[in-house]
């Protein structure tokens, strides 16, 4: 879809990716982005929203890609699924990656497809050896098809499996060691999951191997204050709350500065609101860089 000239124009972009925070790309922002060209690190797209042969999504992506770095976030490959990856779907994702040449491709430690049905949610996996073997096989297949390292995102979950025999961070560490993938550390997911399961989000961050983290996600969540068990819901439809900003600062200190995304999927505000959150993240990153003299380069 994209001409080679488009890709080469975007080739200088990775430096912006490491220096400045990015935001989610949503159709309601297309025209404003092209008219005003706001300054930011990158835009992140969901792969599955850009797999059509034509239409406005691919058209605007092509134009926006000419001016900005883009990262691609897969939401439908079902890496944690019990059934084999859908190779036809994987092929379409690989073509998109080829066309867009994203700075980062990421997916989730979750599943969504089973028995010829797509559940349109990121469903949890048990942390045991059988799941680890299966997840690693799928990541190997994904990385060899895309011919690049992928980042896998830690999930937000609402229950834990009885038969999980290791912690989420142990599972993720083994997964990374076996496949060579990186970690997309979603700070909001840590806040949500730790609240839902009574864990300590700071200890979660401390348990992550800094050198494996390739990107941070920041997002908002909601609280389902039901009388049986209050649960935080990873809704991506609210501003980022102070708990998540605090955790992010901790992650910047312990892990270091990384490309960071302001992730918003629902209840979309004016783009300027997301840019303001991105600027705030930039401020925290600058402070962390100064304090740590972190020399990490993507």
């Amino acid at each position, binding site marked *: 879809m994209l001409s080679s000239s488009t890709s080469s124009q975007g080739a200088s972009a990775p430096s912006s990716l490491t220096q400045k925070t990015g935001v989610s790309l949503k159709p309601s922002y297309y025209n404003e982005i092209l008219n005003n060209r706001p300054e930011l690190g990158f835009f992140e797209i969901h792969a*599955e*929203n850009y*797999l*059509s*042969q*034509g*239409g*406005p999504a691919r*058209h605007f992506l092509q134009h926006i890609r000419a001016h900005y770095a883009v990262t691609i976030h897969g*939401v*439908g*490959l*079902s890496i944690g*699924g*019990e*059934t084999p990856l*859908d190779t036809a*779907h994987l092929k*379409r994702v690989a073509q998109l990656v080829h066309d867009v040449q994203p700075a980062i491709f990421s997916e989730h430690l979750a*599943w*969504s*497809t*089973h*028995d*010829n*049905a*797509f*559940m*349109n*949610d990121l*469903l949890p996996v*048990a942390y045991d050896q059988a799941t680890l073997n299966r997840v690693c096989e799928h990541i190997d297949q994904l990385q060899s098809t895309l011919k690049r390292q992928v980042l896998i995102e830690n999930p937000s979950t*609402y*229950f*834990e*499996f*009885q*038969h999980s025999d290791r912690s989420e961070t142990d599972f993720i560490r083994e997964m990374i060691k076996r496949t060579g993938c990186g970690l997309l550390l979603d700070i909001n997911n840590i806040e949500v999951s730790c609240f*839902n399961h009574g864990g300590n989000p700071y200890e979660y961050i401390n348990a992550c191997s800094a050198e494996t983290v390739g990107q941070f996600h920041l997002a908002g969540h909601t609280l*389902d204050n*039901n009388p*049986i*068990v209050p*649960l935080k*819901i990873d809704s991506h439809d609210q501003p980022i709350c102070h708990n998540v900003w605090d955790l992010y600062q901790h992650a910047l200190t312990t892990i270091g500065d990384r490309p960071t995304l302001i992730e918003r999927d629902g209840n979309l505000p004016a783009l300027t609101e997301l840019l303001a959150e991105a600027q705030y993240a930039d401020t925290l990153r600058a402070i962390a860089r100064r304090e740590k003299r972190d020399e990490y380069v993507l």
Partner: protein
Amino acid sequence: MNTSFKAALFHQSNAFYENIKGHSEDEKAARFNVYRNNIFVSLIDTLADIFPVTQTIVGEDFFRAMARVYVQKHPPKSAIISDYGDDFAAFIRDFEPAQGLAFLSDLAALEFTLLALTNTQEHTSLKGEQISAAFHNADDPARLRLSLASSTHIVAAPYAIGSIYLAHKNPDSISLANIQVEKSEYLLISKSNLYGDCHIVSQPEAIFIRHLLQGKILGEAIPDDDHFGLGVSLAKLIDWQLLTNISNA
């Protein structure tokens, strides 16, 4: 295990709950319900995005209740969620509470067709000067063969679904109150610019366009009808950017 997870999602079967950590069955159910709720709400929202006119006709509450039954019976088969709903129109046709609105299924089918067209590859249409030159240079314009974009087709709709659709798209220029729903109409379905588009055409225009799509030369494509105006019809095809090639037979 994902089989029992899926059964719990769609059929309220509780067998899966034994896999969930929790102090009580209520807690397990509350935790699992987050996924059930996420999936149903997101898929119903998706259908509302794909079928906005259908939703407006029946109202949000009716639409969401109908969509919930559909989601339960027909979960998506693909991760490309914009493709969801290909058999929603067929489902509506058999959905008993919607039987009073005989046109609703056709309207939903029209909305799905237009979205599917939006997602297809764009075509390159002839520019005005290319069309003028082709006619100017032809020895006999009647022997010209006009090719239309491959996505173009004519639908003979038994109800005024095109009028309903266009009234919702352009509420300022078309009044829904003036539409006679029981009136049949011919629709030209095509892709213009980036989007699937629908135009209401007269019966002679529908015949003319069908002839062009069959590959007939201009002279043979013109219907034998006093109400047909060649100039007006060609102007519409040019305006809608549907002419992709003009050749001599």
